[in-house]
Structure formats: C-alpha cells, structure tokens
C-alpha cells in the first residue's frame, strides 16, 4: 500500500492570497464490490447480476477488450491503504486528491459495470438507478464537495426519462450523463426526448468517454492495441460533436448545455474548421441548420481539459487554447487514473490569473451553477 509521495509546493505554485480553489470535472469513484449496490438494487436484479452478469458487446466477461496499461487503469499510487480498489475509499481520495489540490467541487463520473453499455436495457436501468443512489449515499452525502450526475442509458429512452425525473426531484444532481458509444450517434432523433428534458430541467448533458456500443473504435475497424484504442476516445467525442451539431440538436434545443468529458481539446479547432469548411457544400442536405457549426460549438458545448496535449513548443499549446476559446474549457484531473492531469503542472504554457480562474473554476461554476 502506498503513501502519497510528493514534494512540497513551491511558493509560486501555491494559490496564496488570491486562493484559487479548483473545480475538478472528472473524478472517478469506484465500488468496493458490487455488493455495495445491494441496498439500492431490487432482489430480482441482484440475482440477475449474479447469474448472468453484464451483457456487453465485447469478447470478455471480466475484463476490457484491450488490456490496459495498468491495473484498473489506475495510478500506481492510488491504491488505498485500506485495501480496496483505487477510487473506492473516500478518506484516501480526500487525503490524496481533494485536500492537497484544494478541490472545491469534484464531479463524480462513474464507469463501473459499464453501465451505459448493457445490452439488457432493463438491467442497465436498474444498475443506473442503484449507482445514482449510491453516488449520493456513499459520496455526496459524506463529502458535499463531490457532486453526482444522473446516469442514464439513452438506448432505453423511456427508462432514461423516468430516471431523470426521479433523480431531478431530489435537487441533488448536477448533470445528466449519457454514453458516447451507444447504438446510434447522439444526434439521432430517437434520443431527443432526453435533450428536451435536460433543457427543461436546466441540467447540462455530460458525456464521458468510454463504453462499448458495438461499433468498432475506429472507422477503419478494430485496432490491435490499447495505444490505438486510447486515442480513439478523442475521435468518438469529435464524431459525437459533429452528430449533435449536424443533426440540429443545439438548433432545436438552444439552451441545452453539453459537456464532453475526457476527450481532451486538441482536436476541437480542426474539427470545427472542417465542419465550417464543408458547411456550404452540404448546406442543401442540412437546411435545418441556421448557423455555421462553429457558432453552435461556441455557445452550447464545453470540454474538459484532460488529457491535455503536450506539444513540444509551449506556444503551440497557447494557440490551441486561444483557438478553442478559454470560455469553453473546464479543468478535469481524471483522478485516480493513470493519465491523470495534475492541476499544478498540466498547463505547460503561461496563463494569466484571469484565465486560470476561468479554466479551473468559474467556467465550470457557470455551467453547473455552483
């Protein structure tokens, strides 16, 4: 079991007088075991989980299609001394992450059980309900800095709407999470009732990378390696951005806020340039779009920063941030995963104090109304 090993902060790294407490938009809690869900899961589904388990469109029952680079994709130092898996021990998360990095709010992103990718939609919905309850009972209620999202599987639209309404009544959840890899692209009309509800409730739609919708991770087929699959996460997010914009979701739901989580942001400028470049050419196919794609992206979408790009030249990162627009970026760490971004060191280019405030705090506070 490892202790937190870190050097003391230098003075210039300390928030000091203008103390900047951060909002971390991507913190991963984990179940100690699926037994944690028993109190929230009806007997019928507990039994189903035991007998049949997850039914995913992937080849293995008990692991991911591509062996990951570290156990449970975690930082090697993130295993709690209590013996659980990384992200399963609140006290250790507080000690290792929330307290030393001065996290004012951390947004929980649950990936356990591949809850979005369950082929049995009723089972998926039962697990989502249980996890939504578990987030409050095990995390938010024990540490109010940690904010829960309403997890729903968009392929069962009616089940999703019912769960959104059930959770929204508590007033305790700060966004609605759907999957970036489902049966169909997110812009397709079958999913629109979810967006209508999100807009009506004024809850942002959160989309965290991951999951297995059955489609190959790339348009060229199934890669051989995790190093390829990892990079395909950004492709998925770019494809979903295009789907939502081009199908007209922000045109139809202009107040809907959409947050892409863990897609990084390096790909955004060229994706937007490409959409705009070909907009005139394809305009007759999409007359429902009243404005250029870039305008929707600037108004309706936000992007979390991890994994941050590391160009050889710091000035290139600077240009990238300017192209994307500082107002669109929300800091995220991805704690406790291996590709974690440390808020003190992740941005290897100078930012002004005002810019830091936006990226590390005020942008997220505005989106989530903290």
């Amino acid at each position: 079991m490892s202790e937190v090993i870190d050097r003391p902060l230098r003075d210039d790294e300390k928030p000091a007088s203008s103390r900047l407490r951060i909002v971390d938009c991507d913190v991963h809690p984990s179940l100690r075991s699926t037994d944690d869900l028993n109190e929230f899961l009806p007997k019928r589904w507990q039994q189903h989980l035991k007998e049949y388990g997850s039914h995913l469109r992937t080849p293995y029952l008990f692991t991911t299609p591509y062996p990951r680079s570290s156990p449970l994709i975690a930082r090697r130092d993130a295993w709690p001394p209590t013996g659980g898996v990384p992200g399963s021990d609140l006290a250790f998360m507080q000690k290792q992450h929330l307290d030393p990095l001065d996290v004012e709010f951390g947004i929980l992103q649950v990936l356990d059980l591949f809850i979005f990718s369950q082929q049995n939609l009723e089972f998926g919905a039962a697990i989502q309900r249980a996890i939504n309850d578990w987030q409050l009972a095990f995390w938010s209620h024990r540490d109010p800095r940690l904010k829960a999202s309403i997890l729903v599987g968009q392929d069962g639209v009616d089940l999703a709407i019912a769960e959104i309404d059930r959770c929204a009544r508590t007033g305790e959840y700060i966004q609605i999470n759907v999957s970036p890899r489902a049966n169909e692209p997110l812009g397709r009309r079958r999913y629109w009732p979810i967006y209508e509800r999100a807009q009506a409730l004024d809850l942002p739609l959160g989309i965290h990378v991951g999951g297995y919708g059955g489609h190959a991770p790339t348009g060229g087929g199934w890669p051989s390696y995790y190093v390829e699959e990892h990079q395909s996460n950004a492709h998925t997010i770019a494809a979903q951005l295009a789907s939502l914009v081009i199908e007209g979701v922000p045109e139809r739901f202009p107040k809907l806020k959409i947050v892409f989580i863990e897609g990084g942001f390096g790909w955004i400028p060229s994706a937007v340039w490409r959409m705009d470049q070909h907009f005139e050419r394809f305009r007759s196919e999409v007359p429902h779009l009243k404005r250029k794609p870039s305008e929707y992206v600037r108004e309706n979408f936000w992007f979390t920063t991890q994994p941050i790009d590391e160009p050889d030249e710091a000035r290139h990162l600077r240009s990238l941030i300017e192209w994307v627009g500082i107002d669109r970026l929300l800091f995220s760490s991805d704690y406790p995963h291996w590709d974690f971004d440390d808020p003190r060191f992740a941005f290897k280019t100078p930012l002004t104090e005002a810019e830091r405030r936006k990226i590390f705090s005020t942008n997220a506070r505005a989106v989530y109304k903290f």
Partner: protein
Amino acid sequence: MAATRIDCDIHPAVGGTRTTLLPYLSGHWKEQVVSRAIDGLDLTSYPPSMPLAGRADWRPSNGARPGSDLAMVQKGAFDQLGSSHAILNVLYGAQAVFDAYMAADFCKAINDWIAAEWLSRDPRLRASIVVPMQDPDLAIEEIERRANDNRFVSILVLAQGETLLGRRHFWPVYRLAEKYKLPLAIHAGTQYRQAPSSAGWPSHRYEYYFVEAQAFQAQILSLIYEGVFGKFPNLKVVLMESGVSWLPAFMWRANKTWRGVRVEVPWVEREPAAIIRDNFRVTMQPFDAPTDAKSVEEIIDQIGSEKMFLFASDYPHWQFDGDDPIPPNLPKSIIDKMCVDNPLETFPRLSLAN
C-alpha cells in the same frame, strides 16, 4: 516535359460497369456482368449528383458523371488549373466488392481501361493502381501486373476497408510497394463494412464526410503501431482528401499516448510524430483551414515539415472556387516545395522513363 506543377489527386469517373469496363473484363466476368446485369457500383461515398462530387463547371452538360470525359478533364485539370502533370485516382466500387475474384477482375479492368483510354492518350497523366485489398494475394498479382508500367505511380486503397491497414495480412502488399517504389495512397472512401466512427452510423453525408478524417488518423496509428515502418522503412503513405489541419493536434496526442503506453508496442522506438513526418504525405485539398493567415501559418509551423505537403486539386470534386487550388495563406516556402519537389520525392516513378 518538365514538371512545373504536379496534381497528385484527380478523379476520372467510370461511367458504368456494363459500358466503360465491359471491354476490359475477362470472358467469365463479361458474361456474368451481362447476364446478371451487374452495374451501379458507384461508391456510396460519392453520389455523382451531390454538390461535393462535382463542381458545376466541371460537370458534363449531358448529365454524365463529372470526370468521365477525357477532354473535359484535360481542359479543367490542365488548362484551367495550370498543372503540368496529374495523378488519376479512380474511385469506383471494385474496391468494395465482397467477392474477391470479382473485385480482382474489376480492378484489373479499371487499370487496363485507365492505361488504354487515359494514360495512352495524354502523356501528362499518371495513375494509381486500383487493387483488391479484400484479398492481399490478388492485390499482389495486380501490382505485379503493373510493375513494369511506370505510368502507374502508387497503390490506391480506401480509408475505410475491412480491417485496419497496419494488420500483418497486408504486409506482402507493402513489401511490393517498397520494392517497386510505389507509395500507398489512402484515399477518402469506404467499403461500408463498419460505421465510420465508434459513435455509429450517421444520418447525413456531411457528417460522414466529416468523420472520414478520423479514419485516416486510425490508419496512421495502425500502420505505425503494427510495426509496418520498422519492417518497410522506405514505404511512403499518402493521405488523399483527408484534410490537413488536424495533423498537429493528432501528432501531439499520438506522442503523448505513445509515451504513456509504449510498453505495449516496444518495436515502435521513435515518437509517432517523427515517423509521420518521415513516412506520411498529405494532399492539400481539402485543407480545412482556419480563416486567418496567421493561424494557417501556425498550423504549418506546428506540423513541422515542408516535405509532407503535396499539391492537389481533387478535381472534379468541389473543394474550392476559381482557378487556384492552392489553399489561401500558405507560406511561400511550402508552395514552392509542394508543387514539384515533394511529389517527385514521394512518387519516385514519376521521374522514371515510360
């Protein structure tokens, strides 16, 4: 004739299987095509009437497919756009056929047709070899058949096939490509074997065209991480109609991910971006540029290579208006190299006597 401007990507159109290709098919397939009325293999990627598929002034007035008439292509690609030479890339469904024997005979017919009716009629033209990647053995036969004809300067494959291009079953193709100095030209287009992204099947062509850029990115990663360039260090890969402006951020992300996970692919000993700069080339239409000159300059600076860029019009596809296919705001040093030097370096057979 000295080359002053080499257009690395123009598209002649196959009018139809039962018309254009029939004389070039083998006896068996000639009979099959007629008796079973096999035709209409135009790729779903490019509906001929879609605005992108043909600029208005490059469409034959009789309604025939843009790019189907040699005289019109000569007028547009050479007289109007000012090229001295051009490389023909045929986009037709032979590459998407499920029956590998049929695919092989159709590919052979396309290449014979190109040689007889295009290359032999205009010495300024060169072509890519269309191959049946459905079965690498048959692709190899077709490459061997063209190897002595220096007018064929590259091997054409679609960006989205049955499997990613780095996979080992394709390596015999790359062995020949390296041997005969034929770059692998990956062109936008799909066999429709799988959704164009992990998000699933989109509704619109616009969206499909947008995500095709990602297929190129996946192919780059596949070719690098499977170890193709360790085995075939001299192989060049040309990305055609892929878009360009995504390259910098893609290379940063590839480098970062490789640094984190390289233990998985220990045979890849250099940063992906370095391999990309050495072994990959890209045609310059479309560029998908930002609108201001400073950002364009910055993109070029971020890519960090003058050698990668190849002049191309993508004729008759409608990527730009007017008579100048060079994207606005490119630095002069890039324009100087991309029109002649880089194409000659990328396609060594351009310099060989016919």
